[in-house]
Every structure is written in structure tokens, then in C-alpha cells.
């Protein structure tokens, strides 16, 4: 257990360090955040020369990516709308809120166990074919060993969710997902996605990769990114043990409203899923600083997994 605590402490420290670097953050705030409901958009939506919304920017503001830590709960579908009201975003079911009785921080063990529960309490779960139910449960139960993104491997799609940086050009968009050296040890990932109207390569001609082959088009003001050609070495969320096959097809939708970017992904996998699954929408805030930059990713060198002695995990 002592080793496990060290792992947790180290991971948490690295995560917070990363978050701090990213925290050239927008939203002027007085006092700590007490809600995690998706932020409301403000400002106008800039447009590119072709008239489409311009998604270019650093999207790390209290958002959805791994550094948007307050939203880790919302990412899994529970929005704390006030200090007395919380709601499951998928089912609409109200969730009882328990005011905090003191300011004592939790110890590492308490915080880790709480996080594991909080991140899994939402109702929006992919429905696998029954023959895979036990395997998915096993994966999550044993995620310390089974999570393919551990050991500094790419998170893949759709697990990467909202990129921390988007550059939009006339014929393509560029997505950058900084790797995590801490809590979730994954590799830096980028995607160059054409918007020039080209079609997919036939699936059988593609070698499966972590981010697959993506093409994008505009559906009104929404950028639709259509991807296939994956390998089976990723899970499609940070929690849950949600494995998939090489026939996975992912459709992501990005919509900018003012200073917010809303993302959803629909996963189709006829080999594993009983029906397509759509993520709960996630919302990131634009970093408003004109000099906002992405810092260097934390180097990822997994040294802790071998020392973990329990099945507890984030």
C-alpha cells in the first residue's frame, strides 16, 4: 500500500504540475469553483475566410481534456449545477448533493477512491454485446494492468476527446493532444485531418492505427470528423474498460459557440457493440490570451505500474 500511495502521490503531483502550466486560464474567478456544469459561451464566433467557424485556438480552459480536471466528473456525465443540485446529463436523473462539512483535504487514498467512484457514477455507458460484458468489467477492474494507454501509449480516438490545440486551414485541420506524464501516462498525439472533400480509403486497404484515418466536412457550423482504420489497441474512454475492434467507426462533432467548443463522438462497432454509443457532450473553453502556448509535454516514462499492489485505480 505504501508503494501504491507513492504512485498516486507522484502521479497527482505531475498532473497538477501539468495543469498549472496550462493554467494560463481564462475565466476570471473569485474563489474556487463549486460547480462543474458545462460553461456557457460568451463572445462572438470568429469565422474563417470560407465562412465556417474558425476553431483555431488553445482549448484548455476548464475544459474537457485531461487538464480540465474539474470536469473529470462532468466528462462522465454528472453535472454539479449548484451547491445543491446535480444531474446526470444522459438520463436527466437528479443526483443527491452532499455539502462539504469542512475544508480538510482528503488523503491520497481517500481522494483516489473517491475519484474512481465519481468518474464511474454516470449512466451513459456503451452497450456491448452480452458476450463481452464480463470482459469489459474485467478490463476496468484490472485497468492498472489492462489499460492499453498505460505505458505511455497513445490514448487514441475518441478517448483523446477535445484536442488542446486546433489549427484550421482551408483544406485541413490540425489537432494536438499533449501527452500526459502524470495521472494518465499517455503519449503526445496529433491528427492532420483533410477537409478537402476526399473520401475514405477502403477499410480493408488500411493498416489499423491509433488515430485511424480521419476525414472531415462541415455540416452547417459543425465540423464532422469521420474516422476508421483503427487498431484495437485503445479503449474509447478514460474509464470503463471500453475495448473495441478494428472495425470501429467514430464520428466526432465539433461545434464552436463563442469561446466554447462542444464535442461529442458516436462510436459504431458492429463486432463489439449492440448499438452505436454517443458520448456525453463535453465543453472546453478557449484560452483567451493571444500569447497562449502549449508547453512541452511531460516526458512519459512509465515506472510505477510494476509497483502497484492493489487494484485501486483512478
Amino acid at each position: 500500500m505504501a508503494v501504491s500511495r507513492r504512485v498516486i502521490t507522484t502521479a497527482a503531483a505531475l498532473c497538477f504540475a501539468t495543469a498549472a502550466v496550462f493554467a494560463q486560464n481564462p475565466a476570471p474567478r473569485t474563489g474556487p469553483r463549486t460547480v462543474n456544469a458545462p460553461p456557457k459561451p460568451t463572445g462572438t464566433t470568429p469565422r474563417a475566410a470560407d465562412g465556417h467557424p474558425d476553431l483555431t485556438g488553445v482549448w484548455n480552459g476548464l475544459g474537457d481534456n485531461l487538464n480540465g480536471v474539474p470536469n473529470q466528473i462532468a466528462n462522465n456525465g454528472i453535472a454539479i449545477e449548484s451547491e445543491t443540485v446535480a444531474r446526470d446529463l444522459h438520463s436527466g436523473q437528479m443526483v443527491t448533493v452532499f455539502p462539504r462539512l469542512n475544508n480538510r483535504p482528503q488523503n491520497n487514498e481517500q481522494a483516489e477512491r473517491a475519484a474512481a467512484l465519481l468518474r464511474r457514477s454516470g449512466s451513459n455507458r456503451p452497450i456491448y454485446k452480452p458476450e463481452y460484458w464480463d470482459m469489459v468489467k474485467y478490463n476496468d477492474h484490472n485497468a492498472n494492468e489492462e489499460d492499453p494507454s498505460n505505458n505511455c501509449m497513445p490514448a487514441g480516438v475518441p478517448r483523446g476527446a477535445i484536442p488542446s490545440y486546433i489549427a484550421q486551414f482551408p483544406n485541413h485541420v490540425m489537432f494536438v493532444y499533449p501527452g500526459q506524464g502524470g495521472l494518465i501516462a499517455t503519449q503526445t498525439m496529433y491528427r492532420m485531418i483533410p477537409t478537402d472533400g476526399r473520401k475514405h480509403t477502403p477499410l480493408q486497404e488500411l493498416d489499423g492505427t491509433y488515430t485511424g484515418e480521419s476525414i472531415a466536412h462541415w455540416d452547417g457550423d459543425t465540423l464532422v470528423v469521420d474516422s476508421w482504420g483503427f487498431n484495437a489497441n485503445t479503449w474509447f474512454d478514460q474509464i470503463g474498460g471500453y475495448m473495441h475492434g478494428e472495425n470501429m467507426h467514430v464520428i466526432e462533432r465539433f461545434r464552436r459557440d463563442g469561446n466554447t467548443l462542444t464535442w461529442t463522438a458516436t462510436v459504431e462497432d458492429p463486432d463489439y457493440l449492440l448499438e452505436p454509443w454517443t458520448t456525453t457532450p463535453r465543453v472546453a473553453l478557449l484560452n483567451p490570451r493571444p500569447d497562449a502556448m502549449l508547453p512541452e509535454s511531460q516526458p512519459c516514462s512509465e515506472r510505477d505500474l510494476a509497483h502497484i499492489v492493489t487494484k485501486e485505480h483512478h
Partner: protein
Amino acid sequence: MTSAIRATFVCALVGICAVTPALAQGTPERAKVLRAAADALGMGRWSDIGGANTRLPGIDIVNTMELQGSGTSDMGGRQVKTEFHIALGYNPVAARIELTRTPDGGAAQHVIQTVRDTYAWNESEVGAGLVSGKGVATPAMAAVRERLLRVWMLPYGVVKAAYAAGDKTVVSTEAGATVITVPLSGQLAGITLKATLDAKNLISKVEARADNPALANLACTVEYSNYADHAEVLTDVQTPGRIVAKEGGRTVLDMTVKTWETNNPYLVFPVPPNVKAAPASTTSR
């Protein structure tokens, strides 16, 4: 038969959660007791991630659970050796109860009883009826109330129902013990739960009373003891180590828990198409 299991778990009501939980905090005493019960079970958790920049309140983190145990259950008026494997959830309200009963000198009998919201069905195998050619799902709509009640009679169900019922939840003291009385609603309207707390604020007994004579067959009592974290992945959620259910004073179930996973494991309860198409309450349970 199902009378045995009826007593096992907790109760349900569709629409109960449409009531804002904050309403339950109208009376300070009630709020204090409910909070103590929730805290004793480990139901309310918060995230410290974000350090000083974040101070999110706690939320109810109990959704899906899976437990396994062994003991006895009622079978035609006799207590027979039984292995239990139960998956349940509160969002949506659902349960899948697998029983393997072995009567003295008889062959083992395996049944899977499932419920979700307004649907109840029996499965020939887990997930039956969802994929063509994979098992048979037999509608059992008449059993909806009884199966939902099992879910709401669990300690977590009582606390959830008590918060959701708001001002209708009554806190009192009986024989020196704190008692929470909760009228259920929705499909279980007419059923009242009465939960007794022990000295550690853990729920030690839950009685289901039928205010409506038509539901009298649902009346039962379940006793919970030997609380601990019985999970392999520790969460600090306290779960009973022994469950004893009685009807009319007669024990119909006695289970010793082996494991009780509380980390919201992947448990799903999709309703098979033929069950969705079945008319309500047309088949026996």
C-alpha cells in the same frame, strides 16, 4: 419462490428521482439523520482534484453494484441451499438476480430474474434475447414491483428514496433507535419503507409495509449486519456482510456475502425487444 428473494433487496419507484434532492433538507433534523446515514454508508464523495481552485460539493456516487454470496432461500416453503449473484443499478433502476438453488438430494436449479424500470423478464442466460439466437428472454411483467422493491430496500436505496421523497420522509426515534420512514412513489406508490439505524448510523433493518391492501404480498423485512468494505477494489463504501429476509416472521432468505463490488462496475440491463413489446402484467412471475 420469489417471496424468498423479494425480501432480499431494496425497492423502486419510477419518477422518484424527479424530486429535487435539496427538498429533503427542509427539516434540519431530517437532513442531519439522512446525511449521517449516507456518510456511514460512504455514499457521498467529492473530488479534491484541482486543489485550491476547486471546491466541488459531494455527490451520491452509488450507481451500479455487484455482489455474490451463499446461504439459503425459500423454495416452495423450504429453505434450500442457494448461491446468489446479483447485479443492480440505480440509474437506471435495475437488477439482475441469479440464483442457483440446490434442494437436498435434488439437482441445482438456476434462474435469472431481471428488471429495469417498467420491465421484468427472466433470462435463460445473462443477456438473453438481445442477440438473435442467444438465449430466451421471457417477459415477467407481473414481477416488476416485487423486483424493483428489492433494489429500493437495500440501504443505499432507502437513503436515495429518503432524499428524493423530501418532506414526505419522516425521521423519528423508536425504542432508542433512529428510524427513517419513506413513502415510495411511482410504481411502488402505496409501499412505505421503515429503516432502523444502528449506533453507527448504518441501516440495520428495513421493513416494507403495504399501505394499499392490493400490495400486501410485498410486505417484508430485511436485516443487514456485519458491514464492511467487501470489495476487491476498495472504495470505502460499506456493505452488509449478512442479509436476512423475513416474511410474516419467517425467514425466507439468509445470505452471507462473499464479495460486494461497489466501484460502479460495468453492469447494463438493456431490455430485450420481445420484452419491450410484451403487454404489462400479462405473465406470471
